[in-house]
């Protein structure tokens, strides 16, 4: 059968290619960034207030501002590449971006694929529902459809916290949010500040229930890019000590940060 033979040869070719090409040299990201005078950062454009499009259709947000600060400290320009939750790690691993500042939770499992900066934001997972909904918390989710973003920790934690809920994953935050707005989902789970960002866009939705998991966000870099990671960590800590981090935090969340950024002495 021609198709199967084709498939077999393709797989064989691919496997051989992999064996030959796989041990390729890893390029140091920080050197590459300095050489091209540009930091390429993966950011969201559908997750307010971390990365989203404003009325002028430009990408803005908490993550974006932090990346600007990093680029400024490194003395380079910045180019933003749009990522979504499912693509923020693959694009980093494949070299499409130098780092991923994309509302990404630091988890031990992800450490198997990438390295993280220190925690730059701590969020909590909660629920967003229509204002007139009967759902008031996790226990009301039995049998209800909950929209969640594919490729996030949110999916797994919700499954553990509300095993009776019907979880419906979506490719990106926008489609999940639209599903709630259209009534295709009874609830939408996400990080507290992200849900607050969405709720601001449309009247008639409210956040309910207790916060049920801790989501520490980190900026992702590739395995082995320790120089870039140290540079990012240094910038984050300097932003905290100088007060600039708090300014940016207040700008996007309207409250003071509830957890400090850990700082380490220089010498």
């Amino acid at each position, binding site marked *: 059968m021609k198709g199967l033979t084709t*498939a077999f040869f393709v797989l064989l070719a691919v496997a051989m290619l992999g064996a030959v*090409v796989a041990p390729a040299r890893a390029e140091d990201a920080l050197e590459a960034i300095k050489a091209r005078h540009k930091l390429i950062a993966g950011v969201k454009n559908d997750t307010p207030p971390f990365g989203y499009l404003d009325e002028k259709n430009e990408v803005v947000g908490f993550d974006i501002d932090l990346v600007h600060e990093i680029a400024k400290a490194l003395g380079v320009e910045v180019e933003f590449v749009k*990522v979504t939750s499912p693509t923020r790690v693959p694009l980093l691993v*494949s070299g499409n971006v130098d780092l991923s500042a994309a509302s990404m939770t630091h988890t031990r499992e992800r450490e198997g694929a990438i390295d993280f900066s220190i925690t730059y934001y701590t969020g909590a997972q909660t629920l967003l529902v229509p204002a007139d909904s009967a759902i008031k918390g996790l226990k009301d989710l039995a049998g209800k459809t909950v929209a969640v973003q594919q490729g996030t920790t949110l999916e797994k934690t919700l499954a553990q916290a509300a095993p009776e809920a019907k979880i419906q994953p979506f490719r990106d935050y*926008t489609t999940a*949010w*639209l599903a709630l707005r259209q009534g295709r989902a009874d609830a939408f789970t996400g990080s507290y500040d992200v849900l607050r960002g969405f709720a601001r866009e449309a009247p008639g939705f409210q956040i309910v229930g207790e916060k049920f998991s801790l989501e520490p966000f980190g900026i992702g870099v590739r395995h082995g890019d320790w120089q870039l990671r140290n540079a990012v960590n240094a910038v984050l800590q300097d932003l905290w000590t100088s007060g600039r981090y708090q300014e940016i935090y207040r700008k996007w969340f309207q409250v003071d940060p509830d957890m400090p950024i850990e700082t380490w002495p220089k010498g």
Partner: protein
Amino acid sequence: MDLSVVSRNLPYLAMGFAVTLETAALVILGGSMLGLLLGLARSGRVPGLRHCAILYIEFIRGTPLLVVLFIVYFAIPPLIGHRFTAYAAAVIGFIAFIGAYIAEDLRSGLASVPHGQIEAALASGLAPRQVLRLVVLPQAIRRMIPALFNQFVRLLKFTSVASVIGVTELTGATLAVNAREFKPLSLLTALALAYFAACYALSLLGRWLNRRYAIAS
């Protein structure tokens, strides 16, 4: 329906439309060239080349476009150690995709040239390569005009799939605006009409060219 949402965001949407047209133009050129090369390899007499061409064509024709794009954008860069921007990955993916289809169309185009033509050309002293270049290809291509323009219109529609890997062409731009404004019916209707206008115009061009240049069969 509220069409003001379209007029309010017109600059951004128009930019997306420009990206769509630009992408389509690039891919039509590149895809035709790849299709020509692949088609010649496929129908040629060098066995190694022919087998590679056949393998490639069969693989692509059995794979959805979206999957080809994902492979080019996500799966290939780690192997070759070189990143593609979303736009580059889309263009490469589209060219790689449509090239296989145009190659197959070329195969039937070449086969449809009457054998008498080839024999006469050889008999009058032309070398095989000259026969191909001066007699067979021109006729094959003229017979292929409807099929080619079919592929070109398909390409124009395919550019919408680039939005899935993050290219801000017309569909991507429309969805981004919708995410903020939430007027899906107005925006999507405008989107559909824009594609309709572009694709219909392209197919009319194809029909006109066919009337002018086609060979009566």
